[in-house]
């Protein structure tokens, strides 16, 4: 016991883990980044030097223990390093979403009272400077990429590398102070504060302690056997808890190497070059990979198409059993081996997934055919269920027990229970400390015994004991006829069609369900090209009668499936329209993590909702849109509303 606690004491904070990695694996790669066309590496020893210098520089600049330091930037070694440097200096890092607009940033910076901000480039610096007058605590801004800022007033602006230099120069005087601040870290000290994107209301600052992060990272590393030879592509927003756990927590715990892409646009080719062994992507990334494979196969020669079809059919029959180690006949194994040589391996290589040992997806439901496609090729893709408040992990699928419609069993050290209302609760070492400056919402979410409400409704599947999530608990409602309404359940089924990018289903407190649909411009555009349908804009394509016919077909298929589910058969969609604009986070219709904000949408498009329920066939509407640079404009359109065939459910008709 004492031995374990002693061992844990040595890794009680990220700075401790950094020092341990630097002494155990000084020459192993810690962080890589593609710069000027070449992968540049920081070894653990280098990482320790860079980060220590940064921390010294921060102390010299006046960072005090307990300060909050905001970090905004894309995935780069210096940015990741600065998160740990801030902790080394005794302060709390607060990573922010880099695509947040200035007002959104203003709220968070004001709320956490950040005295210091570390920003990646001019774009981020400009946003902070724009709002600096509203921030009474703000003092200094540190930037990484100096481009375009030579003429800026540098009284409060500092170059990160210059900061490191001055930190190094002052090391003699400050090293002791630095060491004592690192020593002062305990398991209960705050490791990081992450703001939740907030599907409702203002973002909340989730305080996560060293214990939360390190124990969660430790459990997850042990669960999947991750070690220093593993590598990971870090391309998701640094402000997202998953990225913090994977790219910082797990990376520091297991000393695995993280790789930063050259730019947002090069992620796919960087993925191919790195070939990570541990990979995380939200379902939409897998979805777009599959879409591109399917589209490109349509342009391949007939022989290749034939081979692809034959072997993929074989893979979907036996691939998953082989992956899970179930019994498969020798002949099938042989065929699979040949398929691996001619199709699966080259395809995995082209996607950059050849070396993936453990792959995860989470955040949204993933379409069964997408999930099965990757698994059947031998990629160990699994699902997990988590949230910021849990330091990610609530449930996770163990190797060999993977089902596309469940999210797995409770993760190590996590207890899960389902309340009367159907809401999922958990208690775990990863469960957050509190919401910053908000004891009321902390009390609402976390009870004194440590049970945290997820806000999601779900149940344990009686067949396999895995958790199934149906919807957000607050979105699950009753319809006027008393049947259960779970919009996400329907939306997910619809979104599995490549043509449908987003949809929003209405029905709470109504007698029937209606839907808004966003088409996927890439998929539908490609289809239009093949069918000689001319279009000049999203809006035009979205209103095309042929497109509406196809979408109608999809919805009718989904209605048939929903009708089979006794509990949710009332959720069949009766009428729908295809929206004239894509739902966008810039217009507040979605969160930055691309979750629809139902309330905002139903208020903003209330005229369309009413039109759906009123029975009219056409509706004229005008909507304000925000362009990327912040300018506003208006678009107007006349939308056609279509009726959809529904399936009568015998049970309910009898009841009526």
């Amino acid at each position: 016991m004492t031995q374990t606690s002693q061992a844990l004491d040595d890794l009680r904070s990220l700075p401790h883990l950094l020092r341990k990695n630097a002494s155990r694996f000084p020459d192993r790669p810690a962080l890589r980044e593609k710069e000027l066309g070449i992968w540049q590496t920081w070894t653990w020893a280098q990482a320790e030097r860079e980060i220590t210098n940064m921390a010294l520089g921060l102390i010299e600049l006046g960072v005090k223990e307990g300060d909050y330091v905001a970090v905004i930037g894309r995935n780069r070694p210096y940015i990741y390093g600065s998160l740990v440097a801030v902790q080394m200096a005794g302060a709390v890092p607060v990573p922010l979403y880099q695509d947040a607009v200035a007002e959104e940033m203003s709220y968070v910076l004001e709320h956490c009272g950040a005295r210091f901000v570390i920003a990646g480039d001019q774009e981020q610096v400009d946003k902070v400077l724009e709002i600096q007058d509203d921030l009474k605590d703000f003092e200094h801004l540190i930037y990484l990429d100096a481009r375009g800022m030579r003429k800026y007033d540098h009284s409060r602006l500092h170059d990160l590398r210059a900061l490191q230099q001055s930190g190094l120069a002052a090391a003699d005087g400050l090293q002791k102070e630095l060491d004592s601040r690192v020593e002062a870290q305990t398991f209960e000290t705050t490791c990081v504060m992450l703001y939740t994107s907030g599907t409702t209301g203002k973002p909340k600052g989730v305080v996560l302690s060293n214990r939360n992060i390190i124990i969660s990272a430790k459990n997850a590393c042990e669960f999947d056997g991750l070690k220093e030879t593993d590598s990971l592509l870090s391309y998701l927003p640094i402000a997202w808890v998953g990225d913090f756990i994977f790219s910082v927590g797990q990376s520091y715990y297991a000393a695995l190497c993280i790789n930063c892409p050259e730019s947002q646009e090069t992620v796919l080719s960087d993925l191919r070059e790195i070939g990570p062994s541990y990979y995380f992507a939200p379902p939409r990334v897998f979805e777009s990979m599959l879409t591109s494979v399917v589209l490109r196969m349509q342009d391949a020669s007939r022989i290749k198409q034939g081979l692809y079809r034959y072997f993929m059919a074989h893979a979907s029959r036996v691939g998953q059993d082989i992956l899970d180690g179930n019994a498969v006949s020798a002949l099938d194994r042989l065929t699979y081996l040949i398929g691996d040589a001619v199709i699966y391996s080259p395809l995995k290589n082209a996607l950059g997934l050849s070396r993936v040992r453990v792959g995860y997806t989470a955040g949204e439901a993933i379409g069964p055919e997408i999930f099965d496609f990757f698994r059947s090729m031998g990629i160990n893709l699994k699902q997990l269920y988590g949230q910021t408040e849990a330091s990610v992990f609530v449930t996770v699928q163990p190797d060999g027990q993977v089902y596309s419609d469940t999210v797995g069993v409770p993760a190590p050290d996590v207890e899960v229970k389902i309340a009367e209302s159907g809401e999922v609760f958990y208690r775990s070492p990863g469960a957050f400390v509190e919401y910053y400056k908000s004891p009321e919402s902390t009390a609402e979410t976390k009870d004194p015994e440590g049970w945290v409400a997820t806000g999601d409704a779900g149940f344990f599947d009686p067949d396999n004991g895995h958790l199934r999530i149906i919807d957000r608990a607050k979105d699950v409602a009753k319809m006027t006829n008393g049947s259960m309404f779970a919009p996400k359940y329907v939306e997910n089924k619809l979104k599995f069609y490549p043509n449908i990018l987003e949809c929003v289903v209405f029905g709470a407190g109504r007698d029937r369900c209606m839907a808004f649909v966003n088409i996927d411009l890439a998929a539908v555009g490609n289809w239009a090209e093949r069918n000689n349908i001319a279009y000049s804009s999203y809006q035009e394509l979205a209103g095309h009668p042929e497109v509406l016919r196809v979408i109608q077909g999809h919805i009718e298929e989904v209605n048939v499936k929903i009708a089979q589910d006794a509990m949710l058969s009332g959720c069949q969609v009766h009428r729908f329209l295809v929206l004239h604009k894509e739902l966008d986070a810039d217009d507040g219709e979605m969160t930055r993590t691309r979750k629809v904000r139902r309330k905002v949408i139903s208020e903003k498009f209330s005229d369309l909702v009413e039109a759906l329920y009123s029975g009219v066939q056409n509706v004229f509407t005008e909507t304000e849109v925000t362009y990327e640079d912040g300018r506003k404009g208006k678009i107007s359109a006349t939308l056609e509303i279509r009726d959809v065939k529904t399936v009568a459910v015998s049970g309910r008709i009898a009841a009526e």
Partner: protein
Amino acid sequence: MLDSQVTQTTADGRKIGGVMMEMKNITLRFGGVVAIKDISFDILEGEIRAIIGPNGAGKSSMLNVISGFYHPQDGEVWFHGEKRPAVKPYEVARQGIARTFQNIALFEGMTVLDNVMTGRLTQMKSGVFQQALWWGAAEREELENREICEKVIDFLEIQSIRKTPVARLPYGLKKRVELARALASEPKLLLLDEPMAGMNVEEKEDMSRFILDVNDEFGTTIALIEHDMGVVMDLSDRVVVMDYGRKIGDGTPEEVRNNQAVIDAYLGVSHD
């Protein structure tokens, strides 16, 4: 540019130096057609100088005179205080003058990177055979050149298309690649022939940003021809206005905008 040579500082803090290039009484004829008639103007170090005018005013001809592609029948071109003899364009390029073209002139079958690398050709010293063997000095030279090109690629944010053949790129990106190739030669004077032609608003904004950044970061002097008046007025320090081969105005954007001859040339004038 040495600070001692700085003669003025712009409102946004850029440094403008002495005369870099001076055109003295240039006249260019093609047979009986007079394309440029007795034009004189200068380009200062570090400034953004625009040449504007209606169609057929002789703007592109003027740029071709600067780049050494055309040799004027009358008049003199002075560069860095020396009169320039009638030299070949590649010799002009070696003196640190690079350009982009009105109708993109890239090698369509080559990748973006290879196209940008061709911008380094004038700086390469090793011969064809050495390069083919890729050994010793040739290897070192290529690595140095590649690094310079990669910095330009990074600067213009075209990493994602580094290995893409140019033929597959959309128009706006091709324009950017052309700028990259010109920048790869690390020019002192950059000539841009209608850098925004055929672009949409967003592409124009991006390109304007890049032009300002090039001027700001590298201190490159820029001479550009452009039709979009908004762009010209926003970007340039001084503007030369041409009409029918003659110079009808020269000065700051503000001065030019209020010049009656310029207004007449652009809006037309009644013949009574």
